[in-house]
């Protein structure tokens, strides 16, 4: 029995050490990436104290839609697109908070849409934050929405195992040589393809009540004395009761039906490259040329 327990104890201790070492290695790589592959690692690896004219936050409906390089050409203003696919209100809040830790912007733009009522974290979009869960500010926010946050923080390597397909070995290896696709355009990436002509119309609905994460963003911007704007990016052939957003959010602008050309859409929710170009012009005309 002694020999067995000795074997088990040695295995478990070595297992724990292995997890601990792997955790340190992975976290170090995410903290100091050779190629920042996610928006979060990219933001964290930017030179600190940047003074920008504006910063854009949101989901894929900003990531694929607004090109800061084009805005710079059209208006001369410096900005950054800090949105990323699947991000819901909670992840957008994390991003805004992270941005203000080291940077400043005169104007903050947050895209809101049919996901307005989502209060939970997004299982996909939370992943880029997980390597940094040991930082108190990030942990406290995640803990409030994810009951497993405590295990992710304190059990070594557990968080990387849980997100193996997003944060695992493959991502670590790729972070050494494969750059992201948005760095050259300050956070923008175009979407390809075009929506099928026969696609059916969509009807989406949002409930008229406040969202706690967006309210936090409003408070942060007040505290930072920064102008905050909310907007809704274009949809194709979709019904959405955006009057709720207009009622609940300050400085709200509705671009929901601003583009109707089918050739500009990749699907109901996303503009393609042509649409993104058109929308970026419309956006900068609306906010920066008056």
């Amino acid at each position, binding site marked *: 029995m002694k020999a067995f327990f000795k074997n088990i104890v040695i295995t478990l201790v070595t297992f724990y050490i292995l*997890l601990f070492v792997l955790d340190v290695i992975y976290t170090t790589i995410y903290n100091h990436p050779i190629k920042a592959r996610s928006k979060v690692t990219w933001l964290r690896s930017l030179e600190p104290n940047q003074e920008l004219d504006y910063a854009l936050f949101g989901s894929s409906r900003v990531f694929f839609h607004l090109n800061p390089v084009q805005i710079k050409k059209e208006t001369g203003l410096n900005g950054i697109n800090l949105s990323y696919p699947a991000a819901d209100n909670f992840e957008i809040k994390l991003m805004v908070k992270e941005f203000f830790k080291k940077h400043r912007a005169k104007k903050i733009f947050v895209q809101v849409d049919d996901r307005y009522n989502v209060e939970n974290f997004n299982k996909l979009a939370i992943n880029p934050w997980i390597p940094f869960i040991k930082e108190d500010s990030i942990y406290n926010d995640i803990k409030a929405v994810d009951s497993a946050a405590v295990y992710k923080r304190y059990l070594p390597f557990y968080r990387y195992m849980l997100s*193996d397909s997003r944060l695992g070995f493959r991502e670590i290896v790729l972070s050494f040589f494969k750059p992201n696709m948005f760095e050259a355009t300050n956070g923008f990436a175009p979407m390809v393809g075009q929506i099928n002509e026969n696609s059916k119309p969509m009807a989406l609905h949002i409930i008229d009540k406040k969202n706690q994460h967006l309210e936090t963003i409003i408070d942060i911007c007040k505290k930072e004395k920064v102008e905050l704007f909310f907007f809704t990016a274009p949809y194709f052939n979709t019904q959405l009761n955006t009057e709720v957003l207009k009622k609940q959010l300050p400085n709200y602008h509705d671009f929901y039906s601003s583009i109707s050309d089918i050739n500009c859409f990749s699907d109901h929710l996303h503009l393609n490259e042509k649409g993104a170009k058109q929308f970026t012009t419309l956006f900068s005309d609306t906010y920066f040329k008056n």
Partner: protein
Amino acid sequence: MLFNSLDFAIFLPIVFVIYWFVFNKNLRLQNLFIVFASYVFYGWWDWRFLFLILFSSLVDYVVGIALAKQEVQVKRKVLLWISIVVNLGFLGFFKYYNFFLDSFTTAFSFFGTDIQARSLSIILPVGISFYTFQTLSYTIDVYKRQLKPTKDFISFAAFVSFFPQLVAGPIERASNLLPQFYNKRNFNSKLAIDGFRQIIWGLFKKIVIADNCAQFTNDIFNNYTDYSSSTLFLGAFYFAFQIYGDFSGYSDIAIGTSKLFGFNLKQNFATPYFSRDIAEFWRRWHISLSTWFRDYVYIPLGGSRGSKGNQIRNVFVIFIVSGFWHGANWTFVVWGALNAIYFLPLLLRNKNRSHTNVVAENRKLPSVKEVFQMITTFGLIIFAWVFFRSENVEKAWLYLKRIFEFSIHWNEQLKFKRFVFEIIPLIGVLVLIEWFSRQEEHPLKNVKYPTFFTFFIIMLIVVFGSFSNIHEFIYFQF
């Protein structure tokens, strides 16, 4: 309770400690505790099915004792049939009722007669095919007077419900497992350490190989009309390793867990993909089921004796029944029939026992001929797996048809680059490790530096394991 779950990681140490430290002085209490732990393990899925397993155990226990007392052959036969009807009745009802109903209504409507039959929403009790066969083997062995019936119901209930192998085998024979419940078990460190290592190896096959392959297999099989021949071939290739990693991984965990409690179960897989022909494959794949069918179906039918016609019939019967055992779907029947077709030429030329030893025995590398034989056999197996994996025969047929269009779209493969860079090397690691340990029960046994090698496997599990996509063991559905 899944072997690769947190529930089991908590359950196992608790049961281990109570088993060896609380009940180690009293064999009866130790066996009773095994029954209790097994029922907790099984009831974790659905406690209602505990009544089924308890009833099945009671019937076979009583029939076994009655058989021992009964000398009149006719009455003995009646007793045997009671056990067969009860056990296969449950299996038939839960597993095949809807299938037969659908098949009959379809057949009648084909001849112009519409039958109104209502299918039932039946949940298949986990592991019913496994424990039914295990308990049936007991009754048949007692009937044949090859085994003395037990008068100890607790031991018998423990034999039927022994949790490590309850839900997906290996299907143990009473002659091997039951006597182990009669004798006092002393803790054997060497056996327990070996069991622990076998569990690690099983987890590697399940979490690293099977679950990673499953992501690609599922995507490709579910959307097979979107993909070209090369991708569809890869899909079948992934599935071959998914099912192997899944099922043999389960068996390793089951056998390893049994060793922790002082039990020796029979080996269920013996590097089957290194087989040089189909006959060898079936001696190395799911050994406990193959031998069950051999002893209780094939040999009673006459086996390979008798006329050629009888031999062919027997081969088809055993493979089709074996296929049907896997599930109530014509795909399994076709899969079984295909294997019978593969097997027949070997049987008819008396070549079905050409390869009873391990490939390249006492050599490091195989000969060119052996490599060719292994690749050919593996190719045939992959072909048959397509039927096993597909939803229905029509889809399997279309899947294969698309493979043989020989269209290759390399751009499409980019979607699966993770397979090329990550999964293929892992499969390579599996194949290499298994090749160099093909004469052992499992690779972590009798290896030169066992502790180091175990850590290496643990590291592979931690780094490459699929933890975000945990899949249930495929054989649970059977």
